[in-house]
């Protein structure tokens, strides 16, 4: 599927539902669940993925994974809106669900949100709010998130620019490269990504990490044991102890949590002594 960046081109309706605000919503990404919760509309959720971990949706039915949603489970919940963050792996099942909605006696909306950049993340609440019939709440949340990003950007201005290696996975080593949204987040907190090249989420050779010689390593691979960082012992910054381990993976959740994670990242970087 061709890309349709959300902020620039708006969402793509794969299927249209009947008029009126939807009451039974299925989200196919934890970040979308977060959006619905942040809009105060959590009572409309009837199904989430099996990687959703927000306590509010603890008891809700699961409709499969982030990359392998189960169409049958989705239809079984009789949704009137399905929200999806565009992902190549899930494309066929989601398209099948949309096709079945279009031919169904009671069609429901299937909305695809192509979220790649920080601008896309900031546009998401507005789009989700509109889809749920709560445009004011959505626009407000988008504005609040944007304001918070700008506040952090302003605070970071004038601080020394440090070159940061943002580690997303330790085994294998996966880092945030150019074109990924964490790359933008690093610039917002006044840093520069130590990783060059063209790939957004490269599996990174250890040698390159050493040669890049970052000033600071940010370990965002919070689901892996912290000792995993020992693999990076050859990186001078790791030897110096210039390492920040994030407390949660909020930063990598392209929704309201990302903003929280951004604040955490900024504070942590400021606490680190400069080289």
């Amino acid at each position, binding site marked *: 599927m061709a890309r349709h960046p959300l902020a620039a081109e708006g969402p793509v309706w794969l299927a249209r539902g009947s008029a009126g605000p939807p009451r039974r919503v299925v989200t196919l990404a934890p970040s979308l669940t977060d959006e619905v919760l942040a809009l105060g509309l959590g009572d409309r959720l009837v199904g989430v993925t*099996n990687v959703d971990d927000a306590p509010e949706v603890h008891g809700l039915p699961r409709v499969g994974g982030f990359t392998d949603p189960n169409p049958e489970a989705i*239809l*079984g919940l009789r949704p009137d809106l399905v929200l999806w963050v565009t992902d*190549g*792996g899930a494309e066929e*099942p989601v398209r099948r669900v949309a096709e079945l909605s279009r031919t169904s006696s*009671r069609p429901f909306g299937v909305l695809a949100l192509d979220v790649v950049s920080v601008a896309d993340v900031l546009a998401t609440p507005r789009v989700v709010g509109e889809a749920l019939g709560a445009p004011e709440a959505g626009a407000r949340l988008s504005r609040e998130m944007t304001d918070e990003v700008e506040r952090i950007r302003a605070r970071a201005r004038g601080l020394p620019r440090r070159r940061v290696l943002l580690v997303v996975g330790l085994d294998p080593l996966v880092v945030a490269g150019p074109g990924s949204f964490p790359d933008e987040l690093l610039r917002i907190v006044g840093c520069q990504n130590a990783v060059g090249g063209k790939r*957004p*989420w490269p599996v990174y050779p250890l040698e390159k990490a050493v040669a890049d010689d970052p000033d600071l390593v940010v370990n965002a691979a919070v689901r892996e044991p912290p000792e995993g960082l020992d693999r990076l012992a050859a990186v001078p910054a790791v030897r110096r102890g210039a390492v920040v381990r994030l407390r949660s993976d909020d930063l990598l959740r392209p929704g309201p949590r990302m903003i929280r994670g951004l604040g955490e990242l900024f504070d942590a970087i400021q606490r680190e002594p400069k080289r």
Partner: protein
Amino acid sequence: MILSPRARLTLALTAAAATVALAVAVSCALGPQPVSLAAAFRGVDPDAAIVLGIRLPRAVVAALVGCALAAAGTALQALLRNALAEPFVLGVSGGAALGGSLVLAAAAGLGQVATGAGAVLGAAPPVALGAVGGAAAATLLVFALGRLGGRLVPEAALLVGVVFNAFAAGVITLLRLLLPPAQQSRLLYWLAGAVGYQPPGTIAAGGALILLSAGALVLLSARLNLLTLGDEEAASLGLDVRRARTVVFFAASTATGAAVALGGLVGFVGLIVPHLVRRLVGPDHRLLVPASALFGAAFLVLADALARLLFLPLGTEPPVGAVTAFLGGPFFLWLLRRSARPEAGGRA
């Protein structure tokens, strides 16, 4: 009671077709979501959408893939004169996966220069053609390198297949690294063999290719009987061995390529099914090929239903290829041990 060959054929095919119908019915009735079949047939949603829009197409794709792999397996066993020959083990499926992946990677590369052209090349039909081409190339390679001193040595061909599989897997891993993230997950999803969510046009095109090639193998089944006698004997009975072999070759490659394009890497169907069917109907390919094709369809439909139900408590499902490998791996080893016993002879 001794039946005429025609009566045996009719009986076997009726039984096989009934089994396919039963398997499809079972597959439509079973799934994670409790549904009412009565409501589904009255057209009440979501029951109708689940049974007719999700389970039925999925059963149809599983049936097509199973039919293609079992028919190709039977044909390859005749060509190689060895019961261990099978599209997956021989590397034919691996070649198809490699061919399809190459087209996907080329599409991603072309998409960098010209977005429209990349999208056209990355659509389902070119990827399927790549898979068929890859399957044919792998078959040629395996049969060419499996010749030692001018004679086809089954064990050598099988070894070439195993090595080619490892090679193809390595190249696919490299290709995956070259793809943008969205395409990477598409490739993984395809190769894992999650069947049945493809758009109807893709299923129809793949189905047509499979029915044509499996049909061709059925028409060629009398020649397969001659080919199993050995090249010299077949030639002395008036068969143009080279030509017959080439046609079987391409029919089996096309069937495998289309099956991989639809269902990803599903192994061992072409091993398990022909072996069991041979026990049922005997070694005559005029009976064996059509019966294997139909029982292969039923087998994979049921294996897919099993995959869907097996991990239900965990809220997930393995790809059907995992189920067939779980059954087929030990089965292959058992066949290998059995055919190695001197009293069983070289051929099982």
